[in-house]
């Protein structure tokens, strides 16, 4: 049970207004492009127009002749320093600047440095690259064809196959399918999309030749990991590198990888002895930085005629582009995709994933997806709807029948996960009530009789976040603990530093609330810092909804260490024994003598002025938290759509989101996260696609065609919650940032398919656009 604190203390559960707002609403944030250093120069990347081509030569003479251009770095220059290639986050390497050949359109080929950004752009245009085009491979289904070009000449094994991964029991699952009364099948593509945070990626690299210290302001969601990687790759001693991740304008996973532009800026700064700023444009961001998804999936469910599911079989082809730059824990080439049994009690399951190379931008990062959990949740929720359709059963009933019951936790899934806690029926029932489900089905029947199209889509997702326990999880070898260091000052104020890095999630406020909860110090008196590797304790960063489950937990544990010491000091001051003291947020008092008490402020002062003999002065602690398990937030989302038969346009009439993320630190912040994630899901479900034509030209590579919803397309979101605490987390929280992006695409797609189900439609691939809907209606003789 979490003690309730006063609004003044502002502990867990209070909707404390955000501290970070003050500078941001005044336009006084400090984003990377706001950093201005004396002598700073600008970098601009020269990029390949071709998807696959040999580089015959790079001529920099005209660029270098342009007044104001200071340097042009090529792949050959980097190769001399052993830097033309760098390791990716996932057992592969990628080119920093191309040598030999290019493997995707927009790949980095050279880096021009000039006195100002306009000259750098002019200089980039003057770099001449002689390309010899090669045959292009863009269809991942053709990657393993013998006739397809082998893309990666640098790899020992000459193949476009990156990995095969499987989990579960193939044989037993096969048997379950053979016995099955009913089998449902769906082929579902989760299309290539992009996190597109409003601030693009960039850095200011400042190598101080006098001190040998490199300071990098960086759009980084994981500053410490980046520092370590820069040290290893760049050969600069790690104590001479300082990464500062200042205000970040959205991340969503896009700012987890290390990009060639960063490395080039560092090299340029070393070479010139001046700070080098590199800020990519939106087009560069969409065309070359970490894309998301591109999973080509098949799911089969074996079930009884009564609708009880028995087994799940999943096969996936993963398109990783030219380099496997996926940000995944190192033992998980397909991330946590094996959560694909979802909220349902399957007895048997088997899942296999094959990763392949294509001539496309590299990656497979986690776009607000907890490492492939969006793909998994989308797949199972679509498959359950297909099963419901095949059985002519109501999709809500089918789910309720198959949910893992709330008394079966911790639940061991057939694919190896131990779900911590859940009450799926409660969330579902609340959502059904909020949306008025029965009335909607009645309305749908009436509308169908009149030829009008409306649909109801349900998604009852379970996701898996908070990576993760050291025994199983690491990224590039670094274990996925996270950390917090707290120092309480003599006057009772505190500073808490974390190894995570907020890009809008409100850590400065919410993490302060955790410390406020544990110590009873008012949240206004607690400064929270993240992002400076010189001062913050080591952490793996913010993505995978892991900050609250890991760093937040570390904050609670560090605070409890402080409270333990505070108790000793209190006992000394009160001349009582520790066993005779009781704690309420903000003070220790003697049991039975409430007047005899010491506040945390008095104790803090004493820690510097009147320390018990034998005890060190000071009042601080650091904790590195190794989560014992992941956490499993869940929820039910229900979407209602109306379809315009004449144009195929889809209007979201209502969207209800019931989320369960255990105990909530700041309800206002959680609600904001849900709104934002649902809006991203809307874009993904209905509008977004990064595609390539047969020549490897990217389509949807700028904001004219990569469509981000405006306030007009975005509907009103109705949110609510249930609360099933995590039994293993210090304050029962699970994390929630990704849930809305994980759970919502299926709700949107299920709604549209549901609207057309009576016409025999079983599946439509995303983005579900008006023209796709219209073509279906035309085929059925309803439109056109």
């Amino acid at each position, binding site marked *: 049970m979490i003690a309730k604190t006063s609004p003044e203390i502002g502990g867990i559960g209070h909707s404390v207004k955000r501290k970070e707002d003050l500078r941001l609403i005044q336009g006084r944030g400090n984003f990377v492009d706001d950093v201005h250093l004396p002598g700073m120069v600008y970098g601009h990347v020269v990029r390949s127009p071709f998807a696959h081509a040999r580089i015959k030569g790079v001529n920099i003479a005209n660029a270098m002749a342009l007044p104001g251009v200071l340097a042009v770095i090529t792949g050959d220059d980097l190769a001399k320093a052993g830097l033309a290639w760098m390791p990716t986050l996932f057992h592969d390497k990628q080119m920093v600047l191309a040598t030999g050949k290019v493997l995707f359109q927009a790949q980095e080929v050279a880096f021009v440095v000039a006195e100002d*950004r*306009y000259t750098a*752009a*002019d200089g980039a*245009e003057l770099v001449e690259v002689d390309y010899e085009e090669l045959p292009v491979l863009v269809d991942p289904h053709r990657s393993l064809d013998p006739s397809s070009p082998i893309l990666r000449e640098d790899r020992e094994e000459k193949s476009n196959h990156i990995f095969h991964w499987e989990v579960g029991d193939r044989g037993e699952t096969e048997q379950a399918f053979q016995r099955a009364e009913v089998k449902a099948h769906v082929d579902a593509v989760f299309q290539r999309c992009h996190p597109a945070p409003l601030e693009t990626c960039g850095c200011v690299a400042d190598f101080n030749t006098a001190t040998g210290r490199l300071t990098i302001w960086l759009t980084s969601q994981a500053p410490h990991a980046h520092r370590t990687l820069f040290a290893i790759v760049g050969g600069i001693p790690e104590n001479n590198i300082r990464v500062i991740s200042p205000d970040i304008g959205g991340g969503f996973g896009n700012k987890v990888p290390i990009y060639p532009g960063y490395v080039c800026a560092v090299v340029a700064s070393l070479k010139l002895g001046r700070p080098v700023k590199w800020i990519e*444009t939106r*087009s560069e961001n969409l065309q070359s930085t970490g894309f998301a998804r591109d999973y080509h999936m098949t799911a089969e469910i074996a079930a009884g005629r009564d609708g009880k599911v028995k087994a799940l079989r999943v096969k996936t082809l993963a398109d990783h582009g030219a380099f496997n730059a996926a940000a995944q824990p190192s033992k998980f080439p397909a991330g946590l995709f094996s959560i694909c049994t979802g909220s349902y009690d399957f007895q048997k399951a088997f899942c296999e994933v094959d990763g392949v190379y294509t001539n496309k931008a590299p990656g497979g990062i986690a776009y607000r997806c907890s490492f492939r959990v969006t793909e998994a949740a989308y797949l199972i929720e679509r498959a359950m709807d297909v099963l419901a359709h095949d059985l002519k059963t109501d999709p809500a009933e089918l789910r309720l029948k198959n949910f893992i019951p709330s008394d079966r936790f911790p639940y061991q899934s057939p694919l190896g996960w131990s779900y911590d806690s859940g009450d799926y029926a409660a969330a579902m029932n609340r959502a059904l009530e909020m949306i008025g489900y029965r009335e909607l089905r009645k309305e749908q029947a009436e509308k169908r009789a009149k030829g009008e199209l409306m649909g109801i889509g349900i998604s009852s997702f379970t996701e898996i976040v908070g990576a993760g326990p050291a025994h199983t999880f690491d990224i590039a070898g670094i274990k996925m603990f996270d950390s917090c260091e707290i120092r309480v000052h003599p006057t009772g104020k505190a500073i808490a530093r974390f190894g995570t890095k907020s890009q809008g999630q409100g850590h400065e406020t919410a993490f302060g609330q955790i410390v406020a909860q544990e110590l009873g110090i008012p949240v206004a008196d607690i400064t929270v810092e993240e992002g400076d590797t010189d001062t913050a304790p080591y952490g793996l960063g913010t993505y995978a909804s892991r900050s609250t489950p890991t760093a937040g937990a570390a904050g609670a544990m560090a605070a409890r260490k402080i409270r333990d010491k505070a108790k000793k000091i209190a006992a000394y001051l009160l001349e009582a024994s520790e066993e005779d003291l009781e704690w309420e947020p903000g003070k220790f008092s003697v049991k039975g003598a409430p007047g005899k008490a010491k506040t945390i402020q008095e104790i803090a002062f004493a820690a510097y002025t009147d320390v018990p003999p034998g005890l060190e002065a000071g009042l601080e602690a650091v904790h590195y938290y190794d989560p014992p398990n992941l956490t499993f937030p869940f929820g039910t989302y229900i979407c209602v759509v109306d379809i315009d038969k*004449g*144009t*195929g*346009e889809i209007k979201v009439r209502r969207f209800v989101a019931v989320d369960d993320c255990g105990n909530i630190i700041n309800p206002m912040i959680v609600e904001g996260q849900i709104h934002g994630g649902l809006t991203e899901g809307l874009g993904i479900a209905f*509008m977004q696609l990064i595609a390539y034509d047969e020549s490897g030209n990217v*389509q*949807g590579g700028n904001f*004219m*065609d990569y*469509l*981000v*919803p*405006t306030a*007009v*397309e975005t509907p009103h979101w109705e949110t609510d919650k249930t609360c099933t605490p995590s039994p293993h987390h210090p304050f029962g929280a699970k994390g929630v940032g990704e849930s809305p992006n994980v759970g919502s695409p299926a709700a949107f797609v299920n709604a549209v398919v549901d609207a057309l189900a009576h016409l025999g439609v079983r599946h439509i691939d995303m983005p579900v*656009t*008006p*023209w796709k809907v*219209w*073509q279906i209606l*035309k085929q059925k003789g309803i*439109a*056109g």
Partner: protein
Amino acid sequence: MIPPQFEYVKPSTISEAIALLQQHGDDAKVLSGGQSLIPMMKLRLARPAWLIDINAVPGLGGIREDGGYLKIGGLVREAELEASALIRAKYPIIHDTARVIADPLVRNLATAGGNLAHGDPANDHPATMIALGAEVVATGSKGTRVIPIDSFFVSIFTTALEPAEILTEIRIPIPPPSSGGAYFKLERKVGDFATAGVAAQVTVDGSGACQRVGIGLTNVGPTPLRAKNAETALRGKKLDNAVIDQAAQLAAAESQPSSDLRGPEEYKRGLVKELTRRALVRALERARR
């Protein structure tokens, strides 16, 4: 993102502007709203050596009825059209059109004149001006001339304007009583160009028969198109659902859409049919008011 270098000049009279355009020929471009030109320059797709900023040239503003015409100055901003009480009350088809051009920020700078002069088949005003039978007034070194809208759009990004001519005014013959028009645009999201757009303007007589009709199509061809066959099918007929449907079908058949990221050709044709129907129905409703 960074435009190439250019020289910039801001003339304070129309003659100065024209003289500069003559002097620099193909090396010069007119800068009015800049909301189409500047993005192209930032992508380095347009590289004029000279920008002639005409925003200080007087006499290019104003929305007024005069001498049987609705006159819209070449520099009138889309936002002004959107906010104009006169336009809203008497020319709702133009209000329909202005309000769906790009987004509110762009509309504060983008000009109606520029929307025509740029020659982009994806722009919205052309179809509406076709439907209204508008005329373009242009001033150049040889003086002022009037270009009928049907002669104005020559090919993609090419209009009938001479290199040293400036579009100074759009004039629309004031429709007779019992006239109404509407513009329907389907876009993937606010701020996008049309997947397809249809403008319809009708005048009906006492018996409800169509006396005059104009139908313009947006972004379904290399230029904005007039749906001539559809118009012919409507003239003189009573505008009931069957007649409207037939006209819509004809408009779809005479459109020339291409498949692209906004959708396949078949879909765009289907949209032309549907939006023509909706535009005619709304135009008729407004004509009857």
